[in-house]
């Protein structure tokens, strides 16, 4: 059975039309160039700042025992969390998308929501539950519980899109259910799994939350020390280059793994919706496992919010300003999600349909913002705009672009994994029927990758709603978002007053999460026997 990997080789260069004529993907190239330029902005800032640093200073900061400890902390946290997130994310997505689990849509929403809970609330929830919680294992548990949605969402989208006929063929050839999953299903969703793991890995390299939540010190702590206490941007940027080096290693690793197998669907025909597995008596166990994930990842922080509202003396009815904060948060996050998703489409299209060294470089570049502290990216935008675009400085537009850069990696994973699943042959058929590329894209490609696009949008939207660092630096003067108001109250111990803002962040994260489940309803309708 070599069907999985028999994509026509002709698509690996610039696309040939049915007639064999080479076609330069103009729109995609333009989009890819914009994405690359945006991502390069903070990177250029980083390099320009870092190279002002003398080697002596870098040596003093870098060649210390502490730094070795911090790097080791970062690496072991990253490895353990990535593995666990893969396990939780794929397991949960499989239960929700591929079994007859009851209340699947409710689970689908609840499993995504931990992404919309601010770190501070997570930390507070755990510390009030168990004050002695700190150290490596605590960090692994808590970071896994807040990051597994980065695997869950793209994998769920990919699972919804797998071709059931392959699984049926495997089963009919005598493979058991477990081996079918391992050898057929997992192979089809591997771009989504690897992409999600890449996000978790890169995100953890730049993670500061683990320190704030459970006092687990990672390499980012050294960078923040230079910013916060030394006011030394140069040293902070020099140290950040270490993160770039680590993420290059992660990007290379993921690329090597992903290159081992392509997984688009074989036939020119329509896919079969894959059958759901009857859980039978295992249903209780699955419910308990998912319940435990949601209870720990969502229940603990929401519990502390409820406690704040009930007990905090600063609890009041939120003023009218909460509405303005809500509107700004929704508008900025939705706009950023739209831009990031729109940029992720050309980046992924180039990397998958027009694969060459250059397009792959752009795609790899697009992941880097995930591995840099938000402060570095935001300061890069500050430095650029005060020099070359002062009129845009601290405008809504600049903040939205900042979000789009910060969370472009999330969008790329969502779109890329969907595109990797979509058979290019369908597009070729469309073109052979005389359709223009734009029409083929709208009528053939877009419907095929729609679940991935929706997942990309949701990931960026939810992550933007809780973003604080870039928001504080770049928001228009006088504008508040839910995250900035929440921060202002909590830094003043006014937990009761802060709670409604955090609750709203979680609530608006539920909206895209819920919209994603509408796809499940559609698939169920299509998949039902006529």
């Amino acid at each position: 059975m070599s069907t999985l990997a028999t994509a026509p080789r002709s698509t690996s260069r610039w696309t040939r039309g049915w007639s064999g004529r080479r076609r330069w993907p103009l729109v995609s190239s333009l989009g890819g160039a914009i994405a690359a330029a945006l991502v390069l902005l903070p990177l250029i800032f980083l390099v320009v700042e870092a190279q002002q640093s003398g080697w002596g200073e870098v040596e003093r900061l870098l060649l210390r025992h502490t730094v070795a400890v911090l790097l080791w902390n970062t690496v072991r946290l990253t490895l353990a969390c990535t593995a666990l997130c893969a396990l939780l994310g794929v397991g949960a997505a499989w239960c929700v998308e591929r079994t007859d689990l009851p209340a699947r849509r409710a689970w689908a929403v609840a499993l995504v929501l931990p992404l919309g809970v601010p770190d501070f609330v997570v930390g507070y929830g755990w510390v009030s539950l168990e004050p002695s919680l700190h150290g490596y294992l605590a960090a692994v548990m808590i970071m896994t519980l807040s990051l597994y949605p980065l695997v869950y969402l793209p994998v769920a989208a990919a699972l919804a899109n797998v071709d059931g006929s392959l699984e049926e063929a495997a089963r009919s050839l005598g493979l058991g259910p477990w081996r079918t999953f391992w050898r057929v299903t997992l192979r089809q969703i591997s771009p989504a799994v690897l992409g999600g793991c890449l996000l978790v890995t890169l995100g953890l390299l730049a993670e500061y939350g683990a320190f704030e939540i459970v006092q687990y010190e990672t390499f980012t702590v050294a960078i923040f020390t230079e910013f916060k206490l030394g006011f030394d941007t140069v040293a902070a940027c020099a140290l950040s280059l270490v993160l770039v080096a680590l993420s290059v290693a992660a990007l290379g690793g993921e690329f090597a793994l992903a290159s081992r197998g392509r997984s688009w669907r074989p036939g020119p025909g329509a896919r079969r919706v894959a059958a759901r597995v009857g859980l039978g008596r295992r249903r209780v166990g699955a419910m308990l496992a998912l319940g435990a994930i949601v209870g720990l990842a969502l229940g603990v922080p929401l519990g502390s919010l409820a406690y704040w509202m009930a007990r905090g003396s600063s609890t009041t009815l939120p003023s009218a300003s909460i509405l303005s904060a809500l509107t700004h948060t929704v508008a900025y996050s939705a706009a950023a999600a739209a831009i990031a998703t729109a940029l992720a489409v050309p980046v992924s299209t180039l990397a998958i349909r027009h694969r060459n060294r250059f397009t792959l470089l752009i795609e790899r570049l697009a992941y880097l913002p995930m591995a840099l502290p938000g402060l570095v990216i935001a300061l890069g935008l500050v430095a650029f705009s005060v020099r070359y675009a002062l009129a845009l400085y601290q405008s809504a537009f600049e903040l939205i672009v900042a979000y789009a850069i910060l969370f472009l990696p999330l969008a790329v994973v969502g779109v890329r994994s969907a595109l990797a699943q979509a058979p290019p042959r369908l597009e070729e058929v469309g073109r052979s029927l005389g359709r223009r590329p734009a029409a083929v894209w709208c009528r053939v490609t877009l419907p095929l990758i729609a679940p991935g696009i929706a997942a990309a949008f949701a990931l960026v939207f939810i992550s933007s709603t809780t973003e604080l660092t870039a928001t504080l630096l770049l928001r228009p003067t006088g504008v508040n978002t839910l995250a900035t108001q929440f921060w202002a109250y909590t830094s003043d111990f006014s937990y009761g007053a802060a709670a409604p803002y955090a609750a709203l962040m979680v609530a608006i994260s539920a909206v895209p999460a819920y919209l994603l489940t509408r796809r499940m309803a559609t698939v169920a309708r299509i998949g039902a026997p006529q």
Partner: protein
Amino acid sequence: MRGRLHPLLPSLALTAGLLLSGCGASSHAADEITLYNGQHEQTTAALVSAFERESAIHVNVRSADEATLGNQILQEGSNSPADVFYSENTPVLEALREKGLLAPVAPSTLAAVPSRYSSAQGDWVGVSARVSVLVYNSSELQPSQLPGSLLELSQARWRGKLGFAPSETDFQPLITAIVKLDGTAAAERWLKGMQANGTVYPDNETVVAQVNNGESALGPINHYYWFRLQAELGASAMHSALHYYAPGDPGDLIDVSGAAVLRSSGNQAAAQRFLAFLVSRMGQETIARSHSYEYPLRPGVSPAAGLRPFADLHPAALTPAELGDGSAALSLEQKLGLL
């Protein structure tokens, strides 16, 4: 299939709207200033509205933590939209002064508060103050057991009982004070002892909360964190109390909140007027009433009820300006692996 793309459409419309409305940085009118605020937002909001009533000058407030704003101003340089920077601690002001980014403060403004709490060069003015104290869990420790000196915290009897936040801006002044009063070797010994004894927390809010719930027995903080926690939780939920160091001890430090006018400000007159207001009687009374639990620095204005009177504090003879930008303390912490 059509329903799936639904969330994209309204957001595209929103983007277009924001693109049209969001551009255009605010231009400076004579009766308008921009304040970069690193001080607690609620206190600043009260000050700003009192100032706007009195002066008819509109204040655009940008709040963030002081280090973020400090880094932002460093990047902005001469293009900074900020006219005034108001920060919770002085090291960030000293760092900006060293880069030549601050304008001299009007002499009459400097004269309103004791000169030892302002910049030695007159580039920033002290506005309010906090005192460095010990918070201890009152069910685990009796006042008689507590150390008179900050230096005693490094003794082995506090092993496993101490909590502290070495990455907080309030912590470096303690190190600097020991360096200035007892020498670098003493500071290094002390830090090693702290490292052996203590749990490292990310911030003072966590220190006070963890001491209050008994996870740590005691820790060095600034007094106002405890008062704010009490205001939020209520007196019945407080299982901790404050302990003041012996007079003149290096731990007995005054930390100052200060404000400065940026050299790049195109509206120096209005900016100076705001600084003058901060140290005026009305400004200082606003701070005393704002539940920030800071000491107003202007003589004759009393702090919030419950605070030990400012005159009864006997701090070490070090001025905030002498404590500098904290870089020596930072290097020491980095050398020992505390940061």
